[in-house]
């Protein structure tokens, strides 16, 4: 590296991938409608004019913030600034005014403890939230004042109306919206100081000037009442990063949601795990999805529309690269990630044969295995050789088998190859080919598997930011390798740059996503254990199932700890729950929940991204992975699995707690 500071910001055409790093103008300019009609700002799964409150839930990087900011001021206002538009007409066309705020900005943790009880903090926070949202509303109105004559004309009436929302109206130094805004900011600052100084013995005493909801609902009602152009406009408070609120604080918001009054609605943006309470302060009633609010699982929505996500994600990348020397169109992007025709050099691949020779010689002496080895070398590919060896291993693993006869059976298969369209060696190679290729790559010291753009889209699991991060890192490595010296817009990016970029993105995701604290560590450990078991299978002499990154589990028959951890992993997108579970073939016939490892993590463990087999995990194995089992217990499980799957296949009799079926995967192969 030429510059010791270089690691802090690798170059490349893609810079900002987080929507929090984008300016308002960039939020507008980089918006790609996932679907919907051009010019119609609705999406098929989201209508900003929907009067029902909406909780927009999703994993990190699912696009919640970008969407909420796009549908709110000030980004809304930027759209109105194009050309010579009439703001009143544009607002009417939108049908809504979005007021965006982040829960993190309130720094809610300061409204807790410090020698005061929860009941006191509930009152303080509810009032503070009222002021906060009221100020945000007035800021939006202020930004519209110069552009909307209706507001300017009725300003005095509006100020009177706003003041009437207060039980104890403040005295204004200046009778205007600006004056009211300045006053409320000072009131809020005073509360800030008192809350801060509480730890130094300061008094937490101040006058509460309005009841919950009076400003939040009252201010928009005043605007609707006095300004004809806003009579049919909906005011939508977008509260993002909801997970940053403490549970009692979320209950304050939930109460507003439940008791909302027209023309107000809410959009709550939160991580899937971020809704800590659905209770309200209204006789402890809960808010219910479908009743008080709608729930939009954003990443699930994107994931389920694979074709649309593919197009959407490509356009997202091109939007960012086209102005910075990278691909300017989707076609150029595809060209950068084109794949060369497969040219596997197997001439050096012989380690599997050497290993087999050693295993058989130890039992039968050096001479007997030579005929088998000689026959194996006549097969046209190393994959077919491994298929034949797999057949032998499968035989031996049954136990009590005559090894010489087993060798004889394999020799017959090899001599007969190819035995018609249903040749057994071809069948095995077709089923386990991906795993065999991974093993050959590892044996040959080669790590680089050529990945396509389609692979990266699959690995993103419907999370736009994950895809952007992968692309960003790959382009940065490509530039580091000098690929942009030439025709960088369409020059094919090397497999090595793709591998390095992907590996960085994988490690970022695994490091970035889990939560803080002890539970976060346990979660990471659980996923690591699961992936480790999958890896044992991947590189085993006799993998029990091909392309294994899925498992099923009877959720009602495992410990609470394990169940909670699985749910936590799912809510953080470390695991993806498959829509359809699988039937338990025991007498109970119950449906087992089925999960898949998030495929962006797979490269860390050299796991496939194709989903095929499913491991049925039960009993002590599921507890060893997801429960509170210690490392020794997991080590025993791992060792047992290794012994079962590798020569000489000790303990290979079927383990009822590690039962495997033929898999109900989608059979997708890496493209």
């Amino acid at each position: 590296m030429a510059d010791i500071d270089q690691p802090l910001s690798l170059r490349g055409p893609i810079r900002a991938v987080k929507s929090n790093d984008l300016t308002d103008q960039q939020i507008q300019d980089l918006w790609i409608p996932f679907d919907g009609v051009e010019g119609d700002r609705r999406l098929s799964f989201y209508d900003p004019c929907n009067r029902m409150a909406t909780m927009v839930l999703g994993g990190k990087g699912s696009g919640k913030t970008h969407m909420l900011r796009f549908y709110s001021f000030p980004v809304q206002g930027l759209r109105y600034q194009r050309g010579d538009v009439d703001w009143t007409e544009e607002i009417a066309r939108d049908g809504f005014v979005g007021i965006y705020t982040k829960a993190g900005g309130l720094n809610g943790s300061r409204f807790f403890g410090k020698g005061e009880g929860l009941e006191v903090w509930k009152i303080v926070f509810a009032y503070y939230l009222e002021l906060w949202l009221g100020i945000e509303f007035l800021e939006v109105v202020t930004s519209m004042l110069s552009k909307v004559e209706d507001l300017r004309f009725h300003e005095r009436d509006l100020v009177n109306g706003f003041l009437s929302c207060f039980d104890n109206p403040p005295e204004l130094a200046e009778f205007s919206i600006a004056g009211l805004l300045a006053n409320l900011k000072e009131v809020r600052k005073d509360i800030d100081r008192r809350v801060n100084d509480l730890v130094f013995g300061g008094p937490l005493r101040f006058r509460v000037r309005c009841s919950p909801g009076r400003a939040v609902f009252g201010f928009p009602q005043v605007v609707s009442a006095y300004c004809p152009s806003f009579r049919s406009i909906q005011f939508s408070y977008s509260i993002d990063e909801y997970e940053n609120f403490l549970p009692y604080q979320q209950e304050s918001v939930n109460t507003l949601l439940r008791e909302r009054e027209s023309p107000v609605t809410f959009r709550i943006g939160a991580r899937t795990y971020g809704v800590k309470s659905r209770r309200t302060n209204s006789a402890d009633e809960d808010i219910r999805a479908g009743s008080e609010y709608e729930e939009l699982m954003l990443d699930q929505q994107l994931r389920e529309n694979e074709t649309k996500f593919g197009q959407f994600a490509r356009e997202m990348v091109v939007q960012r690269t086209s102005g910075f020397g990278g691909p300017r169109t989707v076609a150029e992007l595809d060209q950068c990630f084109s794949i060369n025709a497969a040219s596997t050099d197997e001439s050096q691949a012989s380690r599997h044969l050497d290993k087999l020779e050693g295993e058989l010689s130890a039992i039968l002496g050096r001479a007997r295995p030579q005929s088998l080895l000689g026959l194996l070398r006549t097969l046209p590919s190393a994959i077919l050789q491994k298929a034949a060896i797999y057949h032998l291993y499968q035989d031996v693993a049954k136990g009590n088998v005559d090894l010489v006869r087993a060798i004889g059976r394999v020799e017959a298969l090899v001599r007969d190859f190819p035995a018609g369209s249903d040749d057994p060696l071809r069948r095995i190679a077709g089923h386990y080919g991906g795993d065999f290729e991974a093993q050959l790559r590892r044996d040959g010291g080669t790590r680089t598997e050529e990945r396509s753009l389609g692979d990266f889209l699959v690995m993103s699991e419907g999370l736009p930011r994950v895809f952007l991060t992968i692309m960003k890192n790959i382009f940065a490595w490509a530039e580091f390798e000098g690929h942009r010296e030439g025709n960088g817009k369409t020059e094919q990016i090397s497999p090595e740059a793709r591998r390095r970029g992907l590996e960085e993105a994988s490690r970022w995701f695994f490091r970035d996503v889990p939560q803080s604290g002890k539970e976060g560590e346990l979660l990471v450990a659980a996923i690591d254990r699961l992936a480790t078991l999958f890896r044992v299978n991947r590189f085993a002499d006799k993998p029990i199932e091909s392309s294994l990154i899925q498992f099923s589990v009877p959720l009602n028959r495992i410990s609470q700890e394990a169940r909670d951890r699985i749910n936590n992993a799912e809510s953080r997108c470390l695991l993806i729950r498959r829509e359809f579970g699988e039937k338990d073939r025991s007498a109970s016939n119950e449906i087992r929940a089925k999960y898949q490892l998030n495929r962006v993590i797979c490269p860390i463990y050299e796991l496939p991204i194709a989903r095929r087999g499913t491991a049925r995990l039960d009993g002590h194995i599921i507890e060893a992975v997801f429960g509170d089992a210690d490392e020794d217990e997991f080590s025993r499980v791992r060792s047992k699995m290794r012994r079962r799957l590798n020569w000489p296949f000790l303990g290979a009799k079927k383990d009822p707690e590690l039962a495997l079926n033929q898999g109900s995967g989608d059979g997708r192969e890496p493209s």
Partner: protein
Amino acid sequence: MNDPHGIDEYAMYYRNPVSLSDLGKTRYDVFVSAYNPSDRVVDVFAKANASRKLWVVHQEYGFHDTDLPNGSGSDLFVGVDDDDEASFCGKLVDQIDLDSLESGRRSLCFDFTGFMRPHIMHLVLLLYKRGLPGFDCVYSEPVRYARRERTQFSIGGIRETRQVRGFEGVAAPDSTDDLLIIGVGYDDRLISEVAQFKDAARKVMVIGFPSLRADMYQQNLLRVALAREALGDVPRRWRYFAPANDPFATAAVLADIADGREAGGGVGNLYLSPLATKAQALGFALFYAFEGERRNASIIFPFSHGYQQETGVGLARTWRYTVEFPMQTNGT
């Protein structure tokens, strides 16, 4: 604590290297140090000259009772798990008993080397609020960190990330122009945590340079690089330098950064996070104390469950800093 006397020229503050023998020549009423078994803590405590010496025990170090110092001539203050930094420091100051101190500047001396950073900061404000005119503090540099760039400082999970008690400041609702200034140290995990906590804020890094030892600058950068995804793209012009062992220069750099950003377009909320040396943490606290409120500043910190008991090897140099508070009028 906005200073009415204009003491924001941090260069005026006294900062001197001091040998252990010279340290012993100054007699304090009370000498307070946070225990860990490293030479640079234990040796300094032994040489300090005070009527009373007090060992402070942080739960984060995970000491067993048998690990704790039990020598004669020193008292022990043991923190309680449930106490936040405000409760901890309040009880500590009560045990110190400020009323028993002789008047004059050199009545109280802290060795901040082993203290937790939030506690250092809260102590500064608390002592000011309690009317102390000032105090001395010392900080000792190691010869090297035990595993160089692989040295682990915080261990276990991160309990929570929040504002430090007393440093919560005044909030601006509009987070568009939020700025997060991170004093970046070796602990990339903490850097990532705080960067993600204020994901929307623009990030500015303060890198310890000159570093405590020549090779520590590069070691520092290698660790910061591990947090680059969380930090995002931090342009070179947003990387600043402040001496790793100078709290006053650090405070001055923070003031320069804030002034520059305000002149360049304004700052909404100014978030500060000292994740490097204890000396720099003191600087962050002083900057907040003197200038925080007018700048909508607050200090945030990722609270880790635990910290390594020993991270450094040897004792290279000890610094003594004199913190003086402006005279208080009308109770402010």
